[in-house]
Every structure is written in C-alpha cells, then in structure tokens.
C-alpha cells in the first residue's frame, strides 16, 4: 500500500487546503455554542438578579420546611407560676391537648398556689398566643410578650398585669393538686424543671439554669456551643439537633420536640379511635360496643379516616381522582375529535387544498393558545372544577393530536391503498382497509403518550382553579405549615404517574411491536 511522504502531504495541504481544514463554524461549533450558553446564563444571572435573591434567601427555613415533610413537632410550654408549674400543650398538638406522653412527665403534689392565677380561658389564650408566635425574639421582655398575648386575645389578662385588671377573676388560695416538677427527655438530653430552676443533663454536660423574673436566666457555668444565650439573663436556646430545641425564658420553658413520621395519619385527635393500637381498633371495628349509636364502628372509623382534620384523606383522594379523570377524558375526547379532523387536514386523504390549509391553521391555533389560557377561560365558563380542566386539555390536545395525526396520515405507504382500490373497493372501504390499519397503532400510541403526559400537566393547571389536586397542593404550600400534607400528595401523584407510565408504555409496546416486526 503506497504511503504518502511528508513532502507529498504538505503539497496536498497547500493545494487543497479547503478540504483538509474544516470551516471555523464546524470545528469550533461546540465551543462557540457552549460559550454562548455561558454568556446567556450570565445575562440571566443579571436579568433575574439571581445572586442577590439567593443571598437574601433564608436557607434555614428551607431546612425546617424539608424536615416538616417527614416529621412533626410537639410544642408544649411549661410556665413558671410562683411555686408551681403550668404545662400547656397547644390545642392542635399532634398528641392532643391533654396528652400522656412518656417523654414529658409531670409530678404533682398538694400545695397552695402562691401566685395569682388566671381562669383557664386566659391561660389557653396566652398559650395559644405563644403557639402562634413561638419563641418571639423579644420574648425576654415581659411587656412585648403581654402585648403579643393581648393582640391574639385582647380581653385575656396576661400573667404580668393580671393584678392590675379589676375584672380579672382570681382563684382562691386553697391547697390543690399542682405540678411541681417536670421531667422531659428530648433526644439524648434530659431536663428537670422545677419552679425557678432548670437542670439539663446531656452526656457528660450538666448545666443548671436559675430562672426568675428580675434576673432572667442565669447559668452556673460557661455554655457549650449548642446552647445560645446572647447575654446573661437573656433567653437561652438549647439546640439538640433533629430531636428539637428548648427555649428557657424567665417565665417559661418552651419545648419543640420533633418526631419522625406523619402524626395522626389515620385518625385525628378528635376521633374515638385515636391513640389506639391496630389490635384495639380492629377489636372495636369487628365486634365492639357501638361508639356512636347511630352507625356501626366500621362506618364510624371509615368516616373518621376520610374526614381526618389534619390529612383530609377523603378530599385529597377526590381531588386526585379529578386530576386523573381530567387527563383521561380530555385526552380521549381530543383524540376522538382530532381523528376525523385530521382526515380533512391530510393532503393525501382529502384533496381539497384550502380545506387542508384551514384545518392545519386551526390545529396550530388551538396549540398556540396556551393550556393556561384555555384553563383560565373555562374556569370562568364552568366555574372551578374538573370540567374546566378537562375542557382545557381537550382544546389544547385536539390541536396537538390533530397535527400529529395528519402528519402520520401524510406519511403512510400508498401501496396498500392502491391494492384495495385495484380490487374495486369503494372510497370508504379504501380508507377502512387501506389507511386505518397503517395509522391506527400510531394514533393509539400517540394518544397514550399524551394521556400519560397530561396526567402530569393536569396537576399544574389545577392550581389556577381548573380542578384536581393542583389547587389543594398550592393551598397546602401557601400556609407553609402543612408540608407533610404536600409530601403526602406528592407521593400519591408520583404513584399515579408511575402506574400510568407503566400501563401506557406496555400498551404502546404492544401496539408498536407487530408493526415493527412486519
């Protein structure tokens, strides 16, 4: 095999340089493209001021929200009341308002209260106040706290100025059963709380906080880095990692104890089945005394599950079904309407050029009007609900499917039609046996593909009011407190999408394979 010498090569390169050197655009196309992308990204960085937005973002909130997806918090407050303590769980605590839990135990003894006491209504209001604005940064100042309380419940007397209020009802000073000591175990730390004193033991660390209204919170030794106290006497925050945190203030100890999992997922705290084990519930359902004389325990349990106040299972399932139905009906009707229209749009089926052109522009129009516009329009027409959503999907996809169908029709093999025509079939029969067998599997496959993708997009148009689970998701996210509900719905959506993906894929493969092997 003759080889080129070096001088030959140089001569050829000189003579036909244009052949050996590819054009600049071809050689550096990828590099130029990448550079353009980087420049564009920089431009967007400036356009959206991404840098400053990311800087302003509160990433610790993100962590807390993410933790909320898979865990829940119990937030009891332990208030110092002179010689005794007052343990309050918020009204909507996952453990109920008056729970018996093993991580927080109270020891009671018969003593005479020495501090002025409010009626229980005032106490509940002030505890609700601290629940709504937990650990207000200025919590150490009594004035700020009482103003926060009176904002939540203007008529409720707060502890610091109860004496000054003429109408405040004061309980007589007689010996009663009152809490004098609270033991709390949170993660690897344990607290012993008695009036005026909090003792914390975690591993080898043992710290005693002395608490009173005049000096604030005083510690007996330097604090480790997981306890934060801005100044001596100020509020002390004990961070225990994932299990939670404890804030020690001069008038109360607020506990945030985080637990992994979803609280009260099946029964809420109002349900008679709440807090019972599986066995107990099963026993009640199958042959226990009727808890509600009007209906059986099974019906009661089922209705309690569906109407769970926190998780709203019934409503979530209904909305999810709406989303599925929207995608199903929208896509099915779209394909049924697009089929005959595509016959009119295909040049080789209907030989009427103006009509072909008109149909194709009609499809383009339907596709170009965004699904959002259709959704907003039909929400106005039908009111919020799945009718609006399915109409939006129907209108958008009639355009898309019509376009795809007519393109497939124009690409068919003409031999089959000729064959059918050659044996003298009528035009209708030519379409039936010459065209349909070729395109039907493709049409079905395309329809299935859109059914699958619409199941996903139906979620999002729901958020503008077009029915389905989208709005529910959006509402749950707006409150910033129900992230566990969001996660629950996300899991349901993921399951639905994966299942439909699998069904659609297997059906499509069955439709396509015989054609591919032929």
């Amino acid at each position, binding site marked *: 095999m003759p080889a080129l010498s070096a001088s030959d090569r140089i001569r050829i390169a000189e003579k036909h340089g244009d052949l050996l050197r590819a054009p600049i655009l071809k050689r550096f196309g990828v590099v130029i493209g990448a550079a353009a*992308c980087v420049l*564009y*990204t920089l431009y*967007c960085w400036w*356009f*959206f001021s*991404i840098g400053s*937005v*990311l800087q*302003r973002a*509160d990433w610790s909130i*993100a962590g807390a*929200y993410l933790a909320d997806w898979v865990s829940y918090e119990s937030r009891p407050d332990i208030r110092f009341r002179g010689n005794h303590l007052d343990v309050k769980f918020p009204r909507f605590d996952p453990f109920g308002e008056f729970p018996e839990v093993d991580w927080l135990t109270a020891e009671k003894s018969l003593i005479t209260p020495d501090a002025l006491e409010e009626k229980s209504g005032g106490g509940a209001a002030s505890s609700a106040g601290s629940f709504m604005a937990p650990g207000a940064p200025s919590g150490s100042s009594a004035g700020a706290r009482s103003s926060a309380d009176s904002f939540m419940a203007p008529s409720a007397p707060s502890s610091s100025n109860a004496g000054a209020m003429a109408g405040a009802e004061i309980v007589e000073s007689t010996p009663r059963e009152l809490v004098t000591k609270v033991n709390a175990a949170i993660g690897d730390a344990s607290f012993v709380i008695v009036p005026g004193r909090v003792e914390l033991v975690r591993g080898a660390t043992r710290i005693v906080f002395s608490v009173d209204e005049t000096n604030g919170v005083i510690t007996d030794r330097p604090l480790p880095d997981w306890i934060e106290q801005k100044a001596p006497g100020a509020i002390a925050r004990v961070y225990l990692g994932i299990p939670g945190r404890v804030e020690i203030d001069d008038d109360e100890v607020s506990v945030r104890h985080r637990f992994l999992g979803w609280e009260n997922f099946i029964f809420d705290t109002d349900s008679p089945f709440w807090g019972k084990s599986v066995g107990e519930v099963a026993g009640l359902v199958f042959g226990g005394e009727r808890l509600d004389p009007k209906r059986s325990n099974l019906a009661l349990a089922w209705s309690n599950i569906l109407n769970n106040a926190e998780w709203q299972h019934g409503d979530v399932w*209904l909305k999810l*079904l*709406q989303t599925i139905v929207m995608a*199903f*009906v929208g896509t099915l*009707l779209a394909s049924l309407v697009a089929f005959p229209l595509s016959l009119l749009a295909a040049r080789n089926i209907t030989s009427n050029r103006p009509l072909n052109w008109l149909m194709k522009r009609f499809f*383009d129009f339907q*596709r*170009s*009007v*965004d*699904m*959002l*516009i259709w959704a*907003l329009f039909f929400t*106005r*027409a*039908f*009111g919020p*609900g*799945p*009718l*609006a959503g399915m109409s939006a999907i129907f209108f958008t996809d009639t355009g898309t499917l019509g376009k*795809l169908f007519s*393109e497939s029709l124009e*690409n068919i093999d003409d031999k089959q039609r000729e064959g059918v025509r050659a044996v003298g079939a009528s035009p209708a029969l030519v379409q039936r046996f010459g065209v349909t067998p070729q395109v039907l599997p*493709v049409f079905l*496959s*395309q329809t299935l593909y859109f059914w699958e993708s619409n199941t*996903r997009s139906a*979620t*999002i*148009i729901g*958020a*503008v009011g077009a*029915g389905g689970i*989208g709005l529910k*998701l*959006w509402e749950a*996210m707006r409150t910033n407190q129900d992230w566990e509900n*969001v996660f629950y719905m*996300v899991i349901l*959506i*993921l399951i639905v*999408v*994966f299942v439909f993906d699998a069904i659609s894929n297997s059906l*499509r493969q069955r439709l396509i394979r015989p054609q591919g092997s032929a």
Partner: protein
Amino acid sequence: MSMTHVAENRPSAAAEAMERHWRSLTASRRLYSLGGLAGLVAALAASLWFANETSAGKFFDRLPYFFDFFIDLAPRDWVEPFRALFDLASPYDDGSLKYDYPEGRVDLIAGFYMPEYFYKMLETINIAILATLIGLTFGFLGSFLAARNTAPGAWLLFFVRRVFDTLRAFPEIVIAGFFVAVLSLGPIPAIIAIAAHTVGALGKMFFEVVENADMKAEEGLRAAGANWMERMRFGFVPAVLPNFMSYFLLRLEINVRASTIIGAVGGGGIGELLRLSISQGHEAKTIAIIALLLVTITAVDQFSAWLRRRLVGDQAFEFGR
C-alpha cells in the same frame, strides 16, 4: 382434476377444523374489541358524570353562559388592546388600573421605554431558555451514565435513571411552591421547577438516543486505547448532538408554555399578568396579553420546527412511534 373432485365434495376434516378455528379466533378477537370499547365508553361516561358532579358549575347549567367570557372581553374600542400592548395613554383613563396603561412602562434609557407586556414576555422566555439550558447540561451529562451502552457501572445507571424518573414525575408546582416559600415570589422558583422537570425529561430522551447510536466509532476509539471520557467525546457526541439539539428545541417549545403556566401560580412573567387581568376584568389588557402570547408561541414553534428540520430532517417529527 383433483381440484374439481375436492370442490364437489365436502371439505376435508383438516380444512374444516382450520376454518372453525379461524372463525372462533375472529369471534373472540371481535369480542375483545367490543368489550374493550364498551369498557372505554363506560369509563368515559362515569368520568364525565363524576367531573360534572364535582365541578362548581354544572355543564348544562353553565352552557348558556358559555360565551359570556367573550362578551365580557369586548373592549370599549378596538384600538384599546393596542394601547394596552404598547403602554400608550388611553382616552378612557379614569385613574383606575384598568385603563392606566403607561403605569407599567419599563424605562430603559431616557425617553425610551419597553412596554410592560413585552418585558414580561421576555422574562417568561428567559425563564424557559435558562431552564432548558440547565436541563440540557444535566441531561447531557447524565445521559451517558444512564445509557446501557455507555454507563460506567450498573448501579450508576440504575441510580441516574431513577433520578430522571423522579424528576420527570415530580409535580413542578411543588418544586416551585417550595422555592417560593424559601426565595419569595419571583422567577427563580419557576426556573428551578422547570429546570428540574427538564433534566428528567431530556435525560430520558437523551439516553435513548445514546442507546440507539452507532457503536462503530466507539469501538475504534476503544481499540486505539481511548479512555471513557475520550470515547464519549469523540465516539458519541458528534453522532448524537443533532438529535440532542432537536430534543432540546422541542423541550424549549414545551417550556415556554410551562413557564407561562408556572408564572400564573406565582412564578412571575406574563402568566401572572394574564391571570390577574382576567380575574380583575381588564378586557383590553387581557386581549393584548393573549395576542402577544399567541404570536410568541407560534413564532417559537415555527422557528424551532424549522431548526429541527434542518438538524435532523423529517425524523424530528416522527413522534410517538
């Protein structure tokens, strides 16, 4: 001779059995088809009933008012939408937001402004392009790890595929909502949400392209002792790039629509303005926005279709086969 003999007599037992078998096959096939069709019709009827029951307005009650929206949409005169579109002062200006078009002007330099809706449309398009670029980058990198013929390891292939699946199926609205909570309202949550979905969608399409690619170039490089990086760069990238770009453009079309929708639920851009102007009953503004959207989306679609046809020919349009 023998033919006439057979024709005169009854068919042989074998032929009869064959015919009987064919008949029963056809019958059962027809039965399945009819059964499937009946099931579909039943499901459709049940779904329609269910949708109608759970909607706020019932279909037949609302039908007479169906076109009210269009009637409400009629502006006071037909120059109004143009004034709204270009932020020109309206003769009907009564101090309310409804007719105060110049209020939204975006000042560029002294004396020149960009009409509000064009600016917001640009924002929406930028959201879509940036999100698609992010999707392209990660989908590109991930696809070589997820394709059966290029994956460096089986566990990596499995992992990357599951990541793609999850990102694809994860509702965009939740990602957007989460980042709205962290970053406050604005376009960045929308970018993140659309980008996440795009990574999953493009990644899947890309690895399917890589799996269908011709392996000869890769074999040559392997024989010459090229490492994994070099084999991908010189063996696959040139072969798959046109298809990748085609899918990229297709995704861009989809994302322009998606960013409008995400905008309507708090992601900024033109979608938000459209939702507001419809809900507040500002008819001229609504018409202006819808017209702008229609033109933009059509232009993006046409441009992308033209470019895709140039890149990969008619193959770009064989969709769902």
